[in-house]
C-alpha cells in the first residue's frame, strides 16, 4: 500500500530546481533514490535528475535525486502488474508516508548453525505486535497463484501430449502400412516374421527419435521466441519457457515409446496377413 501511494504520486521532474544556485553547506542536500528502468523510461528520467516525491497525489513532497536506475529482478509475482518501483532510505520513506517509526517487515539472516524453528519459537515467545515466519512458509503461502498457473500448464500439457500421441500413432501406422509391399516381398523371400517385425520396429524407433530430435530443436527455438516476446512485453528478465534436460528426456522417451508401440501394432497386422494378400492378390 505504501509503495502504491508513492508510485502513484511520483511527480514529474521538478522544474523549479532548474537553474537553482548551488546549495550551501547549511542547506540540506537532497537525498538519493533508486528507480526501476521502467519508471525511468516512462518518466524520461536519468541519473542525476531531481524529482519531487510525495505520498499523496497533488501534495508537496520531498525533492530527491535519482541516484541509480536498476533493473528489477525476476519476480513472478510482479509480472503483468506493470507497477513502477522506487527505492528510498527507510527514514525518508517513513517521513514522506507519515508512517512513523514503523516498518512492514523485518528480514532476518540467521547464522548457518542456527536452529531456525527454535529461533522462530523464541522470537514468537517474546514478540509483541508481530509474528515470525520462516521464509519458506511465506513463499509457499504467496506462491498459490503460481501453483494454480502450474496446475493449468500441467493440464494443458496433458492434453497436448494426448493430441501429439494420437498424431504420432497415426503417422507411424501410415508409415508402416506404406511398406506393405516391401514386407510382402520379404515374407515371400522366406524372411521370418520376427525379423520383419524387428526391422519395422527399428525403423519406427529411428523415425520417432529423429522426429523428436527435430521437435526438440523446434521447441528450443520456440522457447527462445516466447522468452524474447514475454520478456519484452512484461519488461522482466523472468524466463517464461525453459527447455530442461528432463523435459527433453520425457519428450524423446514418449515419442520413442509411441513410435515402437505404433510399429508393433502395425507390423503385427502386416505379418499376420498372408503376403499375397498384402500384394492385393
Amino acid at each position: 500500500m505504501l509503495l502504491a501511494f508513492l508510485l502513484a504520486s511520483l511527480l514529474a521532474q521538478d522544474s523549479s530546481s532548474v537553474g537553482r544556485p548551488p546549495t550551501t553547506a547549511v542547506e540540506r542536500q537532497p537525498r538519493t533514490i533508486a528507480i526501476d528502468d521502467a519508471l525511468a523510461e516512462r518518466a524520461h528520467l536519468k541519473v542525476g535528475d531531481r524529482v519531487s516525491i510525495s505520498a499523496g497525489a497533488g501534495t508537496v513532497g520531498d525533492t530527491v535525486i535519482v541516484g541509480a536506475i536498476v533493473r528489477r529482478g525476476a519476480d513472478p509475482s510482479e509480472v503483468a502488474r506493470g507497477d513502477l518501483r522506487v527505492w528510498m532510505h527507510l527514514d525518508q520513506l517513513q517521513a514522506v508516508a507519515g508512517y512513523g517509526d514503523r516498518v512492514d517487515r523485518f528480514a532476518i539472516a540467521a547464522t548457518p548453525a542456527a536452529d531456525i524453528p527454535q529461533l522462530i519459537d523464541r522470537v514468537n515467545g517474546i514478540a509483541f505486535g508481530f509474528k515470525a515466519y520462516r521464509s519458506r512458509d511465506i513463499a509457499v503461502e504467496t506462491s498459490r497463484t503460481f501453483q494454480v498457473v502450474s496446475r493449468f500448464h500441467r493440464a494443458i500439457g496433458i492434453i497436448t501430449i494426448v493430441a501429439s500421441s494420437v498424431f504420432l500413432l497415426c503417422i507411424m501406422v501410415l508409415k508402416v502400412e506404406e511398406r506393405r509391399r516391401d514386407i510382402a516381398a520379404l515374407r515371400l523371400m522366406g524372411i521370418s516374421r520376427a525379423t520383419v517385425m524387428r526391422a519395422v520396429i527399428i525403423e519406427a524407433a529411428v523415425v520417432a527419435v529423429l522426429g523428436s530430435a527435430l521437435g526438440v530443436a523446434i521447441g528450443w527455438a520456440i522457447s527462445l521466441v516466447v522468452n524474447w516476446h514475454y520478456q519484452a512485453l512484461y519488461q522482466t528478465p523472468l524466463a517464461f519457457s525453459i527447455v530442461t534436460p528432463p523435459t527433453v528426456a520425457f519428450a524423446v522417451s514418449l515419442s520413442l515409446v509411441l513410435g515402437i508401440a505404433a510399429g508393433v501394432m502395425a507390423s503385427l497386422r502386416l505379418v499376420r496377413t498372408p503376403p499375397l494378400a498384402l500384394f492385393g492378390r
Partner: protein
Amino acid sequence: MRAALAQASLIRHRARTVLAVLGVAVAAAMLLDMVMLATGMRESFRELLLSRGFEIRLAPKGTLPFDTDATIPGVSAIIATLRKNPDVREISPVLGASIHVLAGNRDVSGSALGIDPSVQGDYELLSGRDVTTPDALVANDHLLRQLGARVGDTLNIATGYDPQTRTYSGQRKLVVTGRVKFIYGASDQSSAAMRRETLVGMNGQSRDRASLFMVRVRSGADAEQVRDWIDKQLPNVTAISIATAIAQVDERLSYFRQLALILGAVSLFVGFLLVTTLVTVSVNERAGEIAVMRAIGVSRSHVVEQIVLEGVAISFAGAVLGLALGLVTARYLNTILSAFPGLPMAIDFFLFQPRAAWSALGLLIVSGIGAGIYPAWRAASLPIAESLRREAIA
C-alpha cells in the same frame, strides 16, 4: 456419388480413419478451449461488472478497486461534486475493512464492506433482510460456516486491529439479519456487510473515507464522457469505466489470451497437418484407382471434390467429437483456474458462447477443406497412362 466414394475410401482403412478423427477431435477440443479462453474471461468480467448496472468506479488515485488498502478522503464532498453532473444517476460509496469476529477464545477474521443498502451493488440477498438498521450485519455462507452462526445471531465484531498494542479501534455487537452472496467475492473469502456509518463508527481511522465509489449513469448518457468529467473534477481518484477496467484486466491477463492464441493456432495446424498427411497417403495408395476413374471419363473436378470431401468428412467428424470433448476439458480447466486466490466466484475463464463453438467449427471445416486441396491437386494432376502402367507393373 462423390460422397459415397469418399465414404468408401474412409471405411476401407477404418483404423487409420478412426485415429485421424481422434487426432482431429483432440485438436478441436483444444481449439474450442482456447477460443473460449481468449474471449470468455473478458466477457465474463464485463458481465460481472455490468451485473448491477454501475458503469463507473472511482478508486484511490493510481489503484484498482480494493487492489490496495488505500482509501479516498472526503466522501461527502465527492458525492456533492458528482451530483453536479446531471448524467450521474446513483452513487454508491463503499468502505472496505478487515474485521475480526470474536467468539469466546476464537478470533475469526474476514473482510467487511460498509455500504448504503438502498444503492449497494456488491451483494445479492439470499435470505433474511438487508442491513436496514445500524446494528445489522449480513454475511456470506463462508463466514457463517466458519462461525457456526445463523441469521438472528448476535456477533461481536471488531475492526482496526493494532498489532503493537493488540487492541482494536472499534468493537460492536451486530445482529446477523441476512445471508448474502458477494458478487465480487472469492469462494474462500469470509465476508460481511453493514451500513457504512456503522463501519465508519467502528473504524476510527476511516471517518468520511471510502475505498470505492460505484456510479450509475443516466440511461442514454455516455459513460466515457462522465468518466472524463470525473477525472477532471476529482484529481485524487482514478475513474474507471467498464471499458478501462476490461483494458486493465486484459493487460494483467494478457498472458492467458496470448497462450490461447498460440495453442489455438498450434491445434489448428496439427489438425490440418494430420488430415493433409492422411488424405495424401490415401491418394498415393489409390493412384491406380484414380487413374482408372480418369481413364473411363470421370472429370478432374469430380476427383478433386471427392478428395476434398474426404478431408472435410474427417475434420467434421473430429470437430463434432472435439467440441463435446472440449466442453468437458474446458470445465476441468476452469476449475483449476477458479482456484486463483481472490478471484471473484462469478468469473469464468472458459465461458461457453455459441459464437466460440461456431468459430471453432468453422475454422476446422476451413482447415479440412484446405487440408484436402494439396492431395486433391495431386490426384487431379496424375498422368493417367503412366499411373496405369505403374499400377499394372506393381
